């Protein structure tokens, strides 16, 4: 009943633009995971992909499937919602584990001076 070639140029444009923006943000976030220096800095980076990145990709999907089916598709809202609710859990567990390790190894990064904070090899 429908194929990608049947949607209008305008919605095709928005679908592509949002998809590119979302994936660019996710890519930058993943690059940050590689590039940033300490563990605590690195865990910040992927949140780009889990917030605005997934938001843009979901919006692109909403635009595409809404124009394709001729009715508003909102299922993607759930993906964004579940991502937002569950990401903090993973991040908190990771960060607390790192903090626990630092504390048992005698270098409590959260209590140390910012300047003296341990900086793993660059």
């Amino acid at each position, binding site marked *: 009943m429908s194929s990608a070639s049947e949607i209008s140029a305008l919605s095709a444009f928005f679908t592509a633009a949002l998809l590119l923006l979302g994936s660019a943000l996710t890519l930058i976030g993943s690059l940050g995971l590689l590039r940033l220096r300490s563990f605590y800095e690195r865990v910040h980076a992927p949140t780009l992909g889990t917030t605005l990145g997934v938001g843009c990709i979901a919006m692109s999907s909403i635009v595409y499937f809404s124009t394709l089916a001729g009715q508003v598709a909102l299922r993607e809202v759930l993906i964004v919602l579940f991502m937002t609710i569950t990401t903090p859990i993973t991040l908190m567990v990771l960060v607390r584990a790192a903090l626990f390790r630092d504390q048992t190894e005698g270098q409590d990064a959260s209590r140390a001076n*910012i300047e003296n904070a341990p900086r793993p090899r660059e």
Partner: protein
Amino acid sequence: MKLLPYPIASAIFLGFWLLLNQSLSTGQFLLGASMALIGGWALAALEQPKARPRRPLAILRLAFIVSADIVKSNIAVACIIIGFGRRERRPGFVDIPLELRDPYGLALLACIITSTPGTLWVKFEEPAGTLTIHVLDLVDKAEWINTIKSRYEQPLLEIFA
């Protein structure tokens, strides 16, 4: 046993079900409603504390502020990673004394803080109410404490008063 021990959670379950099935037909509504009932009883069996959010307008305003902040900090962190405006950047931890004690308020604050790239929830110490966050680009500690308290904690205190 009460029929609807957690009305808000049950309403959310029903909303999820209808969204998931993209339909408002009577059949799906009945299925969703039974899911919502069972879900509510399951929560009751787990003896979860009850959420009493108030002031829907404050909730909307907070949602708007947070969405804008998410977009802003996404751009800021993307710039940091790519390396625009390269200058001395200092990551660091900030301790914030919180007045907020409601578990749902705290959970929401955790979602807000981790959802805005550049800030990360590290730990919350219950008796003292001290929240430790990690900030990717720490310029001024006092300013961060002020921002979190006035921008997010204050509305949350109003909502979960």
